[in-house]
């Protein structure tokens, strides 16, 4: 198979990789992951109730599960830490210097999240050094979705529920293992240097994964359609048109300003720099911030351009469905539905979008 890929760090197109589709048994994949723990911090999804959550793979640890859908936690957590020391005293050094992350089982929506964060943080002039290093050195082993979650709406934002680019290696789950495709030179090298763990996939296996992809996609599409989410190329127009609508006031009524929607969102990147002095040393921390909180845009004199809660809710939608399409030519929402699951006020981004369309 041939893939045309866009490398997030160089923005260069390169044509990779002609390989037959390969199969790896779960037990061989366990072994592959174990071999990666030398060079990487390997994060795997583990079953947590009816969802999955990521944690570090330990030694002789095979207790992970490639979830049917995305994990509950956003993968930005491993690249753009929620609280991280970014400078110390007046030293120009870059602080974080540990093994790069290897993420196992990232879904297509997660990869879209990286495309947005890459746009924000990767920058020759003044990019975020630790994010850039983690992206450059890190490894992404993605996976097809094999089920449909009740908050999933990726197809509404133009994403198919299986990875097509922005991964090193992709897994398509089949009986007792995975069909493996490579998406980068790094992925190709990984497979080539572990050749003995793979065999050629059978036509039955390939048909199975194709069937799975089309089943999952139609479930998501059906749900998005039933919820009347505006189609992707209308979203920006809808947001702009409804800028002065009362829907914002209405939709924000149940918001408790906890900021969970921001925290859990794979594309929310806002942060705050916070200085501390400990043991006579100056430490500067970069901490996740939330645009739903009252003082997010307040200036020192007291003026606040988004003094009211509904203005902040509108701003959150504007950022994702108007700002990113304008500057990046991509919607800043991945359709993962994490914000729906996380909201204590039960604000549903899909319903708000649908209301904007019909009003």
């Amino acid at each position, binding site marked *: 198979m041939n893939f045309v890929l866009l490398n997030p760090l160089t923005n260069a197109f390169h044509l990779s990789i002609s390989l037959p589709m390969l199969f790896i048994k779960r037990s061989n994949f366990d072994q592959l992951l174990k071999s990666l723990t030398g060079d990487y911090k390997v994060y795997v999804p583990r079953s947590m109730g009816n969802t999955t959550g990521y944690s570090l793979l330990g030694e002789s640890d095979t207790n992970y599960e490639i979830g049917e859908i995305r994990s509950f936690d956003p993968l930005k957590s491993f690249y753009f830490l929620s609280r991280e020391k970014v400078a110390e005293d007046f030293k120009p050094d*870059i602080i974080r210097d540990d093994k790069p992350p290897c993420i196992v089982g990232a879904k297509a929506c997660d990869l879209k999240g990286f495309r947005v964060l890459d746009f924000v*943080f990767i*920058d020759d002039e*003044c990019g975020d050094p630790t994010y850039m290093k983690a992206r450059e050195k890190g490894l992404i082993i993605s996976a097809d979705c094999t089920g449909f979650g009740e908050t999933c709406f990726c197809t509404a934002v133009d994403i198919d529920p299986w990875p097509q680019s922005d991964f090193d290696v992709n897994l398509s789950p089949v009986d007792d293992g995975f069909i493996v495709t490579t998406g980068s030179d790094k992925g190709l090298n990984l497979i080539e240097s572990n050749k003995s763990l793979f065999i050629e996939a059978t036509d039955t296996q390939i048909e199975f994964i194709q069937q799975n992809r089309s089943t999952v996609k139609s479930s998501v599409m059906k749900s998005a359609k039933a919820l009347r989410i505006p189609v992707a190329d209308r979203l920006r127009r809808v947001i702009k048109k409804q800028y002065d609508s009362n829907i914002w006031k209405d939709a924000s009524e149940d918001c408790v300003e906890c900021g969970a929607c921001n925290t859990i969102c794979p594309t929310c990147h*806002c942060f705050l*720099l916070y200085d501390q002095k400990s043991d006579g040393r100056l430490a500067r921390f970069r901490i996740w911030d939330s645009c739903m909180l009252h003082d997010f845009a307040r200036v*020192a004199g007291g*003026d606040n*351009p988004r003094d009211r809660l509904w203005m902040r809710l509108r701003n959150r939608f504007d*950022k994702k469905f108007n700002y990113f399409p304008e500057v990046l030519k991509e919607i800043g929402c991945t359709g993962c539905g994490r914000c729906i699951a996380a909201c204590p006020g039960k604000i549903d981004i899909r319903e708000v979008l649908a209301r904007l369309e019909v009003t």
Partner: protein
Amino acid sequence: MKNPYSSIEAEVLKVTTETPSIKTFLLKPKEELTFKPGQFMEFSVPGSGEAPFTPSSDSQIKDTMEITIVKVGKVTDAIHELKPGDTVGLRGPLGKGYPLTKFIGQDILVIGGGVGLAPVRTLMYGLFHMRDQLSGLVYRGGCRNPEEFLYRKELEEWMKRDDIDMKLTVDQGDDSWDGPVGVVTTIMDDIDVNFERAKAIVCGPPIMMKFATFKLQELGVKDRNIYLSMEKNMSCGFGKCGHCRIGPYYCCKDGPVFTYDMIREYPGIWE
């Protein structure tokens, strides 16, 4: 690559009290740190935090810079405690400055208000350095009362120059004041320049910028020629932290100087 989050160490050389709530700090960075008029610095007191300020000194002076700061919150409280010899941090320069080369051959109107006179001072030095390349230079400054005027000495010197049409006003006069009384827009009617082509620079509190902008429009200055120095909540200073977004722009990275036509359609610009 460089770490955009780390500050350069600087020494406080001198502290000048301008008004009870405004001080000017003369700083000597330990590494060369140059800036252009309109660019800003993140100024930090070790352990107390950072805040963005536009330097107020002549950008052609390379080894020191002055920053004028109003006491309004946690970081500025700590800054106001500083004494000569203290160590502070500077991160920058950040943002885009005024496009001085675009000003060549043009009539330039500078409208400053309140503590907005601080960044305006840097700009004025820049404009005086290129005065022979400008076709005209007008300055209108306003403050709430005569005591609020910063840099009295310089203002008086500039008043004496014959290559600038300069006027100052106060909202409320006192015995020491024999100039005009009223907001800054009340001393803009006698400006005699080619408004069609003139470039206007406005810097001051949001309410003053708003009405000065409307006044300039009324006089015939084009929106694309009105340069506004926007004040937004800024943390990183290079377009990553998300706080200072104005429509498709970040105030820190794409500004803080914007022409009015770039931002007029976006809500909350005057707040």
